[in-house]
């Protein structure tokens, strides 16, 4: 410390050099900051905040606690063995009658996730409780709807007692809380997400693999052909890039459907019989074919950019040193394209794992990815908590992959050009 103080360098005017430097650099820093400020604000407002707000819904369970605060107070003392006391019935009654109509609607939706039937029960009760003037309430409530007398409905409330829940995350991997807040598997007929997760990863891996197998030779040709041919080839690679995604997807439907171009050509050529036309679309095959074609440029371009920088003299040197062309390619050329393979692979995989439109249109029942369920719950069931949980898992999987990738390959090895 003492030494550092002694070693402090002064300018000719006697100001410490560091202070002087900071002063001189301040205007540059300010300018740089001002340049990125609009974009930073834009991203924070339109991207970061909405995503964080959405993701918090995956654990947020406050809604119901604001509608039934007193009931939940009493709930904590309940033994959960027999029906609640008259006091708890009375409190519940009061809170249903006095609740805001919109708020209780939302709350009942949430209650329905833990046990279906709650929504209609609340709706019916809200309507009919107006007739009940005074206690005791227990029998009268059961008289309105006998479900008030079923202990299962009361137990299901326990899951919602805390303002934070992991129920949505459990749902997203085919698990749930039972009425004692133990984690159990979903009933057999409601297990859909694990299978979808598995298929999402499988299709993404396959698409990445196919893109690599198809894209590598093209990128190699692009990088090694004389300019006048490679430009033409480049246009062929980029042409689909400039065409609307929807148009391309629909074209695949026309080509691959049972009465479509591909099957008809095979029948015409006599390779398959008319009654044996292949089912190539509205299933996993269709999703694989269409997604591979659509994501191919994302593999070709990074590969091309890397291959372009590899001097042909390396191959010449390897041949000169006595290596067979195949061996030289495998030992000398391919290792140098690894940054391109990883960049392209990561890009295609990231895009594929969250892909929505193409599988939605060509996937049928069998070829759907997780994006389908996110959209379904977002638009149809309005279960945004589950949406957020699915989305969060997707995000975490991506970040984890990224982390593993960085450990294994090193992020600095990614090259896009």
């Amino acid at each position: 410390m003492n030494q550092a103080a002694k070693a402090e360098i002064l300018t000719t005017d006697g100001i410490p050099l560091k202070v002087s430097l900071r002063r001189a650099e301040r205007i540059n820093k300010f300018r740089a900051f001002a340049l990125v400020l609009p974009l930073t604000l834009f991203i924070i407002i339109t991207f970061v905040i909405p995503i964080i707000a959405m993701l918090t819904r995956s654990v947020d369970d406050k809604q119901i606690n604001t509608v039934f605060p007193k009931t939940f107070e009493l709930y904590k003392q309940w033994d959960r063995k027999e029906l609640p006391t008259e006091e708890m019935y009375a409190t519940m009654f009061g809170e249903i009658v006095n609740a805001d109509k919109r708020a209780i609607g939302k709350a009942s939706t949430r209650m329905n996730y833990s046990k279906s039937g709650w929504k209609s029960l609340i709706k019916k009760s809200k309507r009919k409780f107006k007739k009940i003037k005074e206690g005791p309430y227990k029998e009268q409530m059961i008289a309105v709807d006998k479900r008030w007398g079923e202990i299962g409905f009361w137990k299901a409330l326990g899951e919602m007692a805390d303002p934070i829940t992991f129920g949505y995350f459990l749902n997203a991997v085919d698990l749930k809380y039972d009425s004692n807040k133990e984690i159990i598997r979903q009933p057999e007929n409601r297990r859909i997400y694990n299978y979808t997760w598995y298929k999402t990863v499988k299709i993404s891996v396959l698409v990445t693999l196919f893109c690599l197998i198809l894209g590598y030779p093209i990128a190699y040709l692009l990088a090694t052909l004389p300019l006048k041919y490679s430009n033409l080839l480049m246009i062929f690679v980029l042409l689909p890039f400039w065409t609307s995604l929807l148009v391309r997807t629909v074209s695949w439907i026309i080509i691959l459907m049972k009465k479509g171009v591909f099957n008809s050509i095979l029948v015409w050529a006599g390779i398959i019989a008319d009654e044996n036309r292949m089912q190539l679309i509205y299933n996993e095959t269709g999703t694989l074919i269409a997604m591979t074609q659509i994501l191919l440029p994302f593999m070709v371009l990074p590969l091309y950019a890397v291959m372009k920088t590899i001097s042909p003299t390396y191959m010449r040197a390897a041949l000169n040193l006595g290596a067979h062309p195949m061996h030289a390619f495998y030992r000398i050329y391919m290792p140098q394209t690894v940054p391109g393979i990883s960049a392209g692979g990561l890009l295609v995989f990231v895009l594929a794992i969250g892909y929505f439109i193409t599988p939605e249109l060509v996937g049928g029942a069998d070829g759907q990815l997780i994006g389908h369920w996110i959209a379904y719950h977002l638009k149809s069931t309005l279960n945004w908590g589950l949406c957020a949980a699915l989305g969060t898992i997707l995000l975490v999987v991506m970040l984890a992959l990224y982390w593993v990738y960085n450990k294994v390959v090193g992020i600095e090895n990614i090259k896009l050009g």
Partner: protein
Amino acid sequence: MSKTDSFVKFEKVDKSYDGEVLVVKDLNLDVAQGEFLTLLGPSGSGKTTTLMMLAGFEAPTNGEIYLDGDPISSIPPYKRGIGMVFQNYALFPHMTVNENLSFPLEVRKLNKSDIKDKIEKALSMVELEEFGNRMPLQLSGGQQQRVALARALVFEPRLILMDEPLGALDKKLREQMQYEIKHIHERIGITVVYVTHDQSEALTMSNRIAVFDDGVIQQISTPDILYEKPENAFVAQFIGENNQIKGKVQSINGNNCVVKTEAGEEIKALKVNINSVGDKTIISLRPERVEINPTNSNFENIFQAKIKELIYLGDHIRTRVEVCGDDQFVVKVPNTYKGAEFKEGVTVKLAWKATDSRALNSR
């Protein structure tokens, strides 16, 4: 001609890339075993193409190349057993120095201990024993150059090719490497074919130099003969500094001739590359063979000249004069007491011998 005199032989080799222009024309060339031959020429003269044909990366359009008596045109490059040092070294960037050196040995399926020995030997030859585990990019340009040399030598090829290997180094390092390569060549006695456009590099290192221009060897000879006795105007002008005076042949007498310049002076010269009286010719004369204000009278040619410009270069003063109607005539004056007397605009006497002024063909 014995076998060792034509270890490498080009026979009537033509090369064209597009079927319209010949890059190499009717090349006939013999390289003796153990010789250091340099192909020297400006860019586009066909020297690199010649080297690439020898390495096997380009196929001759016509003719045949022999290595140790065997035709090699149909042998692919990886079976030729020729070592090569590339212009930008072409060290494999994803491999360490050791891995780079073991690559040619591994593909030859040598066993591990032999590989280790040979790598050690090769690295010690270029004095880089400590650098085996470095990546090529962690080395300086000169070190990379040496690794490239070691890699080309490690599998004990019959022949080494070098394609402007020193082009990327700075001047001082380049000169140092020239000597190192020369010494390694002398020590192990391997045959080397070296391509460069740098004439001083060629003069320093080679046993013989083949001067290329326009796809044709203009002259092939030892460095001293090439410098002292250029056979045509291109060689005279490409190698070293050179004064050229235009004129017409007035008379020929045996090996000597008299050339009349456009201004009317008669210069006594050596007949080198002219045929008959009346031909246009260029007289080539090295600047260091010209004396200013000579003290003795051993010179056949003595002319009045006017000093136009003096350029101070430290050890000598580059003096541009006007003589025989040529105002680009350069004389190198050593920076001695005598040299300091000259001033611009002064008239002096220039003198040179008839044997130093060579009458060459005019192009």
